[in-house]
Structures are given as C-alpha cells and as structure tokens.
C-alpha cells in the first residue's frame, strides 16, 4: 500500500503493508533513526513520537492508521521552543548514560510540557512512567524537565 505521511513538516511517500508500525516506517523506510525499538509492544516508550502533538508509541501505530496526522520525531524536536529547552536542559545536567531511551524520554517530556507548563512531581511521574531508562537516569530526567520548565536552577550536576 502507498501512503503519504506528514513527518516533521515534510511529505514522505512509502509503499509498505498497512499493518507496518510507524516505528518501522521511520527506521526502515525513511532513515529516521532517532526513534528507537525497545520492546515492540508499547511497554518501554523508546519509540515515542508526537502524533498531532500527543506522545504516542510508534511501535503500536500501524501506518495505515496514521492518515493525515502530523508526525513529529526527535529529529525535529529541537525546532520547537519547548523541545529546544528540553534538549538544552538534558545537556546542562547530562541526563543520560547509554542514551538509547533518551529520544523517547524527551518526546514524552515535550508532550508533558505542552499540556502542563509547570508540572508537579506527580505530573512528571505520571507522564514519564511509560518510558523505561534501564540505566536509571530518572533523578536527572526529573531535574531536566524542571529546568526546562524554569522551575529549577540549572547548576552543574544535580540530584
């Protein structure tokens, strides 16, 4: 099946089965490799993208159901004000260890700040609970979100 997909503000044409998850269209057909495979069943969040601004697991979204939705991936997120602030906060305190899950973490955090400019700790926990970081960077993920939201002083390495 042929599909016209609106990804990161550009139209991409692909010819793939309708059931192919968006994740594998991004990675296998379009060379957008920032979005990661972790579990294939929506349990880890490594494949998180924005579908019309909402965080979704791209491994659970068949390409045939994307339709005209606007897809945004980690490759594009720095072009948004919130995304750029998150990237800068992530770097300020060097959130990551292996880094594999971090694209998904940033995409979920970006959707959170889109809904809630000043999230509480409970908001952060709820919004980020679906994103696994096997290395355990969670203290710094919380801090980076607060820094990006202007709720925490940036200061070298923090708890």
């Amino acid at each position, binding site marked *: 099946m042929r599909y016209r997909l609106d990804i990161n503000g550009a139209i991409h044409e692909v010819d*793939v*089965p309708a059931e*192919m998850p968006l*994740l*594998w269209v991004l*990675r*296998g057909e379009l*060379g*957008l*490799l*920032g*979005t*990661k*495979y*972790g*579990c*294939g*069943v929506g*349990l*880890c969040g*490594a494949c998180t993208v924005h579908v019309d601004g909402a965080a979704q697991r791209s491994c659970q979204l068949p390409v045939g159901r994307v339709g005209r939705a606007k897809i945004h*991936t*980690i*490759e594009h*997120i*720095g072009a948004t004000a919130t995304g750029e602030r*998150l*990237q800068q906060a*992530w*770097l300020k305190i*060097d959130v*990551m*260890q*292996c*880094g*594999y*899950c*971090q*694209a998904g973490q*940033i995409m979920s955090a970006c959707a959170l700040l889109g809904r809630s400019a000043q999230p509480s700790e409970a908001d*952060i*926990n*709820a919004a*980020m*609970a679906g*994103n*696994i*970081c*096997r*290395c*355990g*960077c*969670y*203290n*710094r*993920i*919380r801090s980076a979100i607060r820094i990006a939201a202007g709720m925490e002083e940036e200061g*070298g*390495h923090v*708890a």
Partner: protein
Amino acid sequence: MSRELTAANLDRRSVLKASLLAGGGLALDVLIPLPAGARETAEERERAAARLSAFVSIAPDGTVTIMSKNPEIGQGIKTSLPMIVADELDCDWSRVRIAQADLDQKRYGEQYAGGSTATPRDWLPMRQTGAAARAMLVQAAALKWRVEASELTTAKGRIHHAATGRSVGYGEVASAAAAVAPPELSTVPLKRPEQFTIIGRPMVGIDSARIVKGEPIFGVDMRLPGMLYAVYEVAPAHGGRLVKAEIEAARRAPGVKHVVPIVGNGDADTGLADGVAIVATNWWLANEARAKLRIDWDLSAAKGHSSSVYRATADAAIAAGAGADLRLDGDPAAKLAAAARRIAARYDYPFIAHAPMEPQNCTARYADGKLEIWAPSQTPQRGLDQLHKVFGIEPEAVTLHLRRAGGGFGRRLMNDYVVQAVAIAKAVPGVPIQLMWSRPDDMRRDYYRPGGWHSFEAGIGASGELLAFTDHFVTFGDGKTPARAAGFNVAMPPAGLIEHLRYSQSMMPTVVTTGALRAPGSNALCFASQSFLDEVALAAGTDLPRLMLTMLGERREIVPPGGGVSFDTGRARDVIEKVVETSEWTHRPAQSGSGKGFAFYFSHRGYFAEVVEASVAGGKVTVHKVWVAGDIGSQIINPMGAENQVRGAVIDGLAQALAGQAIEFVDGVAQQSNFHDFQLARIPATPEIEIAWVRPDKPPTGLGEPALPPVIPALTNAIFAATGTRIRSLPVRLAIA
C-alpha cells in the same frame, strides 16, 4: 559532526605507534615521519593534522583529536579516558574532539568494557600518553625558539616562554612535534593532582549532544547501501536442536529476500545455536515472517531444566550436607558447637536478565574473504577470537568497528549476536546485513545472572562476638567448575575478619546459559551475606554497621587466599562511618512500618556502604531515600558521569529486588518475554539518592559496578526494620497485610 577516523587512514598516516605492553605499560616504539603534504582526501583538518601517538593528533588550528579505545556502553568511558589524556596534554577541552577507535589491540592496548577495570588499568598509561605528547610539543617549541624546554610552560593548548613573552599554539608546532623523538613514558613528568584542569571537573558526555538530537550512533543505527535486516529464530528451549525446517512460506513473505537455516556448533559459549535466519528489506517484515516458519525442534536436552526442579535439587543438596569445601579457616564446627547462640538461615535469589534497552545486534558484510563488522560489543577482541574459532576467519581478514551500545550490564561481554550475524553474512556474501533480536529473543536467550541458594550458620559468643560463620552455597556447574558467573567468592566478608569460617559449595548442571551481570558474584552474594549478617547483628544485640566495624578492627590490608586485590579494612571503616553520619543512622526504631537498613560491600576495587530508608504499607514497599558512601580512590575523573553511575546502580539494584525480577524456566524455556513480566525500574519508584565520596590517597578505580551490591541488602534490611519480616528470597514478595 566529526567524522571518525578509520584504522585504515590511521595506518596510512602513522607517525608514531604506541602500543601497550603485556605488562600494561605504554611503549612508543616506532617512528615513521609523516610524508610532507600527504595526499589525503579526507577532511581538511585531518589532512593536515599531525599524529603524535596512536591516541593524539593535533591539527594546525589547534584542534586535538583523541582516540577513545574502549567500547562505550553508557559507563562514560568515551569521555573519561580522553579527559585523562587531555589533562596531561594540557590542552583546552573545548578544542578536543574524540574519535572512537576500531578494534586494534596492538595499537591501543586492551579494548573492552567489563569488570570496572578501565580506570584502574588505564589511569596511568593515559596520563603518560597525554604527557608524552605535551613533552614533544614543548620540545618542538624549544627547538624553534632555540631555548631550553625547561624554560617553557603550557596552558590550555599553548606553549609560553615567560622570559621573552613569546607563546605559540599547539597546532602551530604539531607537525614539528611529530618528528621529535618521543620521551620514555615511564619517566615523562606528570602533573600533581592540584594541577589538573580537566580531571575532576564535571564534563558532559562526548556523545550527549548527538543523543538529544536523535543522531544515529548506536549499533542498530548502522546503515549501509543495500543493507538487509535479519532475525534469527532459535529453539524455544535452551540447548534445543533443529530437526527439520519448512521455510518456503517464510521465503514468500513480503519483503523477505533470504531464509537461511544455520547449523549451530552446539557450543553455548559462542552462541551459534541451531536456527533459521530470515533476511528482509525491513526488520519488521523479517520478524513478521517468523510466524510462517515451521520448525521441528529437538528439545530433549532441556527436559527437567525447570525452576521448580532446580529449587528441589538445591533443597536436597542442602539437606545432604555441606558440599565441597572452598575455604576452611580454623574450626568452625567446634566453635559453632561451643557458641552461646547459634542462628541459621537460608537465602536464595533467581535467575535474572540483563535486558539492555538496545537489543542484541550486529551489522556485518562478508565479501571476497574479508569481513567488516559494526558491533556494540563489550569484548570485541573476544568476538574476533570466536569468529576464528567458529568459522576459521583469520583476525587479519576482519575489520571491527565499535558502535555505541544502548546499555551493556555485562550482556555484551558475550558475542553470540556477532557470531550469528557473521553466520548470516557468510550465507549472503556481498550483502551487508544487520541482525537485531526482538525483545522476546533478548529476554529468552540471555546469559542470565544465575540463581543461587545459601545455607548460613553463625555462632555468637557470650559477649556478642561472631565466633564462627559458615555458608553452604548451591550453584550451577558441571560438578568441577561452576557455570559462567556462578562461582563463589571466598573473600566474601566475614572471611578474613574472623578466625573460624567455612565456605562450601554444591553444584547442579544447567542447560541455561549464564553470564556476568553488573557486579557479577557480588550482586547476589552481597544480598545473601549482608542480610544474614544483619540477622547475626541483631541476635548479638548490636546492629550491622557496628558489627562490621567491630569485625574490621585495625586498619590493615587483607590479601585474599591465592592473591588478587587486597581488602583495606581502613577504607571499609571510613565509608561505613561516613554513611552512618550522612544517613543519621540510629539504632533501630520499633517496627512502625518504616525503617532504615544498612549494608556494606567491597567489589571491583570499590568500597561502598549504603543506607536505605523504606516504608511498607499494604504489602507495598516505598523507598524514600538512599544514602551512598563510596571510595573509588583519590580522584573522581568525571563527577558528572560518576554520580550517574552510582544513581543508576542504586536504581538498578532496587528494581532487582522490588520490581519482581525473576526469569523462570520450564523444561529450559524462559517463561518471561518482555517488560510486562520482567519489570525494570520506572520513574515513579525513584528515591532521592545522596552520595558522599571518601577520597583516600589511593589510585582511582572503576565505578560501573561497585555501587550496586549493597543497595539490595540495605533495602531488605530496611524492610525488616520496618516490618519485622526478613526477606530471605529475591525478588521481594510481601503478603498484603
């Protein structure tokens, strides 16, 4: 973005080869002047860069390129080793770029990520490497200015001559420096610690800026023209053999290009299991086609290899007696008989999986007898050796590129996915293929941290002293040798600290593949022994920190039987006293639903004492805070990465105990397959973690592992303090009160 150098163009441009000698010293051995105006077509900067050693080259504009030799798996070595070189080179960190070295141990010395060994092993050679390059630059400037080298100073990539006020950038003298005879590494002057300008400063990881933008730097992000994607179907049970495979339906599936039955070598260590590879234009299409395979497996070898059978076998082994002695000090039997009080308890823990977020993968291309590999391996040289063993491929015919790994935790010490990818690449010569396992593949075919059982007994004297201690350990092995990572540690405290002690062992066979998981040995032994010692402490009328301090006694070094890394009781005392102070440890409160637990362990040269504060309600454990006191020597190389390693280890250990982690087997088939039935830590459970360093005047050591072991018994001891329920089996399962 920086283009990474390849081994090929390094060779071509070699000015100076540095090689690590067998003993660990660095020798700068061969001097081959760079041809003037070398005909390079690469980046301009590299075209003119002068190579001062295998690790350091400097471009005319002063940009310093430092080769990072070890695999990066999230431990931060790609940043921290070059920091050491850069500091002694006395250059400007903002002008440093770091290139990942290909596998070439003749050039770079050992290149692996395991055992928290890189920092202790490479600390001095990396400093010498940086200092040698600096000395060559200084010598070149001295020759240029016709002054003595001793009159020159350096700072931030510039050389200064105070007497005449002259200064010159490293880049301006780099090509002249490349022709200077390298100094003797063992005598090249090194900085005093107070002169460090890069070491000890929090530095952002060298790949972090690329990671937040989603740039393709991981193993699975490798792409080559014409590359196809592969999956590898193996038997559901460990040790299964392929009898018959019907592959036609899979071959006709959308996108599938090749279906390749592969005869394994029956060697679980190299990991070339019998299987069928499916190669397709898209990984998802390859994975979908697996459902169309019809394979008859012979699973008879795995019959009876079930968790319930292992448990019953361990029970029987413990009932049968003490097993074979591993260590016998004094006369523990007599001391137990004479003790005022004896306590005994059994502890056990399950198999667990590594589950790095990036599944096992490897990209390979085999053409004209040459093999090129892109692998996120922790032990690439071992991978190369196995390719020779399995396929007869000579190491000289292989180019192995290291890719950043999405987590390691010991899983990628094994190279099964490399061997499998090469088996597939050999079947489709000329076609680059990328093998990636699905998450269930990864969960079911791990080299698991093996389960184990301990039967402890302790004798306590009339005045509360620990008189005797015994542990009968039941593990997996062939009767003579324990399975991989299933061995005991005869230096496990309280060994060496009391006179009468016996450690013994029984074994049962397993078809399940086992291997090292972060802090191997220690991650499980610490839970069992420090939990039982907590019981001993209470029975003796004291608490675990006090019991440990009493047993540690005078400051001294204890050399383990048979040699090895010695244990410094003074350093142990200091971290225990530190965490007692930072956590405001007090004697146990009444069991009011919340409490603190303590544990100490020495592993991978690191001394760690940790306190966990937890509460329990409705059978659910909440960890509120963890205090860590650690000693990894005088110098924390990159505090930014170091604190991340400690927090990660704490969170990892807590999840092992609290997230229900256990891999169970029925006739050799792992029953868990994904993150719904093998849970990892998630953000809501993350406690505050407070870290304090003790920094004695000792050489720096590694940090990938030693912070993990104590947190598990500190947690289970906290649960006891909170509830009176002793956790003697992992994972933690509490009745809903």
